[in-house]
């Protein structure tokens, strides 16, 4: 079910966490939109998120959809990005970590789906517990 043009189109969001910002009301969105749902302005511009945020909620998937069995069980979460929006994503490097709501997390680029018959590996964002939480704000 992996269509090459589809995932190629998604590379800005998947690799660089690009969403949108509204020129009129300044609200920021992930995933990207072309019309602002808040003030209805058009012509939203690309906005790259920092990738830093806090964990809003999390779950461990034990009954995976087709294509994800090799990764299971895996953790997923919703993250409140520093710039405001929420994002849903897989969580990475959670082994031995007690996940908790509110913990700081950061974006990492990881494999989302293995190569299927066409040989295209989908990479994209996941979030991991902050490596050095004492130095919030990044490396």
């Amino acid at each position, binding site marked *: 079910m992996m269509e090459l043009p589809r995932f190629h189109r998604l590379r800005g969001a998947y690799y660089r966490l690009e969403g949108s910002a509204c020129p009129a009301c300044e609200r920021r969105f992930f*995933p990207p939109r072309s019309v602002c749902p808040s003030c209805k302005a058009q012509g939203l511009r690309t906005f790259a998120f920092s990738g830093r945020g806090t964990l809003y909620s999390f779950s*461990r998937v034990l009954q995976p959809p087709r294509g994800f069995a090799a990764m299971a069980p895996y953790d997923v979460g919703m993250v409140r990005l520093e710039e405001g929006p929420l994002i849903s994503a897989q969580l990475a490097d959670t082994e031995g970590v007690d996940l908790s*709501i509110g913990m700081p997390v950061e974006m990492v680029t990881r494999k*989302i789906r293995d190569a299927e018959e066409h040989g295209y590996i989908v990479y994209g964002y996941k979030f991991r517990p902050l490596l050095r939480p004492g130095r919030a704000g990044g490396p």
Partner: protein
Amino acid sequence: MRDVSIIGVGQTAVAEHWDRSIRDLSVEAIAAARQDAGSDRVDVLFVGNMLSGELGGQENLATLVADACALLPIEAVKIEAACASGGAALRAACLAVGSGAHDCALVLGVEKMTDHLTDGVTSALALAADADYEAAHGISFAALNALLMRRYMHEHRARHEDFAPFSVNAHRNAARNPRAMYRTPITVDDFVGSPLVADPINILDSAGICDGAAALLVAPSSEARRARRPPVRVTASACATDSLGLAERRDPLVWQGVADSARMAYEQAKVKPKDIDFFEVHDAFTIVSVLTLEACGFADRGSALKLAAEGRIALEGDIPIGTMGGLKGRGHPVGASGAYQLVECVLQLRGEAGEAQVKGASIGMAQSVGGSGSVAVTHILQA
């Protein structure tokens, strides 16, 4: 708009119908509804279904059903709104008959899910979510609801077992419905010990995968009196939407689309939540019942668990939900569930719900929800 009524209903048992096709199930439910109405007239067919393409390799489903039921050459279309498809199909029929375009509309909700293994059905159900930003990341539909449940437990200091009364109630009611799939009562201990699907959601939080079909005949109320069975009026039909992606809500624990759909329905029927005698809730997961009861005005924010703990959702309570088992107990053949809810509403309002009868029921509400609260169709029916 003309006033419309439901003049006949029919349903198959909800089960793993390994020996029966989507055709077989459709034909049975439709024949039962036509017999119930005592009328052969059908002008248009609306088929509520979510996954016939994905799970059955069959689209153009409404033509298939019209053909199988020897209804050609009537107008026939499939209505898809994820798990709200059944409710959306009745709404299409209400618009068609209410507008005067047609005089007798047939509504079918049908789903055939059990030809596939669980991972295939799990992937198919995720089609209701955002394909690029949820499903493609392996976030299953159960996982989305698990994210909501964990957050709800965090904000309202609830424990997982606090959700047990919803599942216990559903199984208790299903035991009184001969068409239901899960007719075995369960205990709180069963609930707590059930295997996890997506932590904290377990098997007994979740409505099961199954097959089924339910049908309703809709006619103008002015002509409904000639039907064989007492007609039931549709006094409200309303649909509203919310963001496709759960993360794009201002507050994911506020199901605004569900609230908007209910508010419009209350306005149309000129009723308030306290006037509703029973509520067929879209309890695909226990957390959905909680968020729905709060969004529809039956409980304040953070207090739906208390409503359940106090037994107010039971058949004898002041707001009985899932009276014939709900999605959890009857089974959740996704695109058909909305039609089952409405058939059950009609049976309750005619006083034909048997052991599951809500005494003195005269106003019933059924709400069909698709995605993570991203589309909601609410109907209010009155005897």
